[in-house]
């Protein structure tokens, strides 16, 4: 006899004086019945209900007294699908093949309120006395299956997320060995899942990752940290580096001890490569700035030196041998000297342009009225006897690089004089207006003249280096002055442009943002 039969026998014995005399108390079945963990119905050989326990009363929603003596069909209906199965007393599809054996069958439970539920029943025949008794165990199949289905669904959902995710997933044992890894992770590092499961997590980490980056993983694995995010490097099976963001979280067992670690890895290699390209670009920029400084030195010294020699000796020859050569030789020597002077001016202007960005000294509150007055005095002295007049509006104090701001006015006012109309007195005006543009205040300066003006088709070009609209002989200059202005204004965070028409003078405008010191 198996244990269940013994249990069933004891259950039958303790079912009460009304059913069997001399039934003792206690034992496992009693505990089973008392615990209420299983719903039990006891029926006689005619399937009349002898009694039910508390769990069964709760399951069916009625008391034992209400159904005692009623047929089992009052509580259970056989399910049509189970027709071919074992029978219970002919009416139910459960037939113990031998005494004490438990048969199982699906059924439909009928609650006291008339509602139904899918049930599973197990039946044991009790070998007590001459008449057969049966103990029927009833389970609510709906509850069980719904829970099972929910669990299955949840597992499948997790499995689906785990497998199909673009994020690399791995479950890692506390000793670092892989317990599972999804396809994304495998693809990320180039290993098959089976290969990966033979490795430890540390083995796919980059050996050069600073200790600071490897340590937190260790802390998590040792159970000291529950969650951690970090940037790290994997080494692909083929040897290249894969940049990842890792989200590492510890899963603890029911007792709170570290069980395993869930690792999520997102491939950020493209972003990292972009960052590195950017850093490389910045380094190149720095190098090119250094080269610009180098150029500045070469321009200031190494290029000037031979020019000086040519110019000096041309002058020396002109001086010592004047009259001893013919007039043509004198003229040619004059061309040499002029050419060299022009070359020197070009170099000086290029140097000034190159040094705009690296100018020494900082920005400071600068009174533009003073700057303009000083600039005009100097220019006026250089053009002695010229009929020219400058008027100014109210000019503000701005935060600027004083020497560079002066250079801007010097170039703009100098241009205005250079491109004046012949035989017309030059009339220049410098004014300023405060405007607000997209929420931030700025000063807009205007340098207006009554000169020859220019075709607006060239309005952009004149701010480019070496772009000149006039032949050398008409107007001296290197074509760098406005490029320097543009670079200075832009370094100050402003813009520069021109408004003009041929014969109508020109208005050069530039802005400087109004800012705190």
């Amino acid at each position: 006899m198996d244990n269940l039969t013994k249990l069933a026998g004891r259950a039958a014995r303790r079912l009460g004086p009304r059913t069997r005399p001399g039934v003792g108390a206690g034992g496992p079945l009693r505990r089973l019945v008392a615990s209420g963990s299983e719903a039990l119905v006891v029926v006689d050989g005619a399937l009349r209900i002898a009694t039910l326990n508390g769990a069964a009363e709760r399951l069916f929603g009625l008391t034992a007294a209400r159904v005692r003596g009623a047929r089992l069909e009052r509580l259970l209906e056989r399910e049509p699908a189970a027709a071919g199965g074992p029978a219970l007393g002919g009416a139910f599809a459960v037939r113990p093949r031998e005494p004490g054996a438990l048969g199982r069958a699906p059924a439909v439970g009928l609650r006291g309120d008339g509602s139904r539920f899918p049930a599973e029943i197990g039946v044991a025949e009790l070998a007590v006395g001459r008449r057969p008794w049966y103990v029927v165990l009833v389970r609510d199949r709906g509850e069980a299956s719904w829970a099972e289905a929910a669990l299955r669904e949840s597992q499948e959902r997790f499995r689906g997320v785990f497998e199909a995710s673009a994020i690399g997933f791995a479950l890692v044992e506390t000793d670092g060995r892989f317990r599972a890894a999804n396809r994304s992770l495998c693809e990320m590092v180039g290993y098959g899942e089976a290969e990966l499961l033979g490795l430890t997590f540390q083995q796919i980490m980059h050996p050069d990752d600073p200790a600071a980056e490897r340590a937190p993983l260790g802390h998590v694995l040792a159970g000291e940290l529950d969650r951690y995010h970090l940037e790290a490097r994997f080494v692909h099976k083929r040897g290249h580096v894969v940049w990842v963001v890792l989200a590492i979280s510890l899963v603890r067992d029911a007792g709170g001890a570290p069980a395993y670690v869930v690792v999520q890895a997102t491939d950020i290699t493209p972003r990292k490569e972009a960052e590195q390209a950017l850093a490389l670009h910045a380094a190149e920029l720095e190098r090119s700035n250094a080269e610009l400084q180098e150029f500045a030195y070469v321009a200031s010294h190494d290029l000037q030196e031979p020019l000086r020699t040519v110019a000096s000796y041309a002058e020396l020859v002109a001086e010592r041998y004047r009259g001893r050569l013919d007039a043509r030789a004198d003229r040619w020597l004059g061309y040499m000297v002029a050419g060299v002077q022009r070359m020197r001016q070009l170099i000086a202007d290029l140097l000034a342009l190159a040094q705009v960005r690296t100018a020494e000294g900082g920005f400071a509150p600068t009174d533009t009225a003073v700057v303009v007055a000083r600039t005009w005095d100097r220019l006026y002295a250089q053009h002695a006897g010229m009929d020219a007049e400058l008027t100014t509006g109210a000019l503000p104090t701005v935060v600027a690089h004083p020497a560079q701001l002066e250079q801007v006015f010097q170039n703009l006012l100098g241009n205005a004089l250079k491109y004046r109309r012949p035989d017309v007195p030059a009339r220049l005006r410098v004014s300023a207006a405060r405007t607000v543009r997209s929420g931030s205040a700025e000063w807009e300066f205007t340098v207006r003249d009554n000169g020859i003006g220019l075709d607006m088709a060239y309005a952009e070009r004149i701010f480019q280096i070496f772009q000149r609209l006039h032949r050398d002989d008409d107007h001296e200059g290197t074509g760098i002055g406005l490029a320097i202005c543009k670079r200075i204004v832009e370094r100050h965070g402003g813009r520069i442009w021109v408004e003009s028409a041929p014969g109508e003078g020109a208005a050069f405008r530039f802005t400087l943002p109004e800012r705190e010191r």
Partner: protein
Amino acid sequence: MQKAMQPARVRARRTEILHVEDNTAEAELLRDALADFPELTLRTLVDGVEALAYLRRPDASVPCERPDLILLDLDLPRLDGRRVLAELKADPTLRMIPVIVLSGSSLEADLVLAYELGANAYVVKPAQLNQFRAVVRAICDFWCGAAASPVRRGAAGR
């Protein structure tokens, strides 16, 4: 004995200018500019190593055998002008000789470094020939004339 030696050293001596310049065209230009100063002796050396060797030759151990003024270019072969300047100003027997840096460079970095190294003046060579002449003559008028010099005092037989 020493008294007997002393008068031999104290001879009528011309003012000596040492020009350290590797570019012979530049050197000749300077020589030409000083053509009106017959009382000056101009010695031109072409690099820093030669210049230091000359200044440290054994018979230059007395002040009157040293130049009154050094005109120094910055970019020199073998030993750069900046290094020469640093060596001169670190040498107790040579540091009192005035050194004028005569350079084509207008870079602030060169200017500042030269003064930091102890240059007595920094002169950017003017581009125009007549301005160059004027500057060179002004330098010689000042440093070989107006300015008092321990070198020339030594020569005077103190």
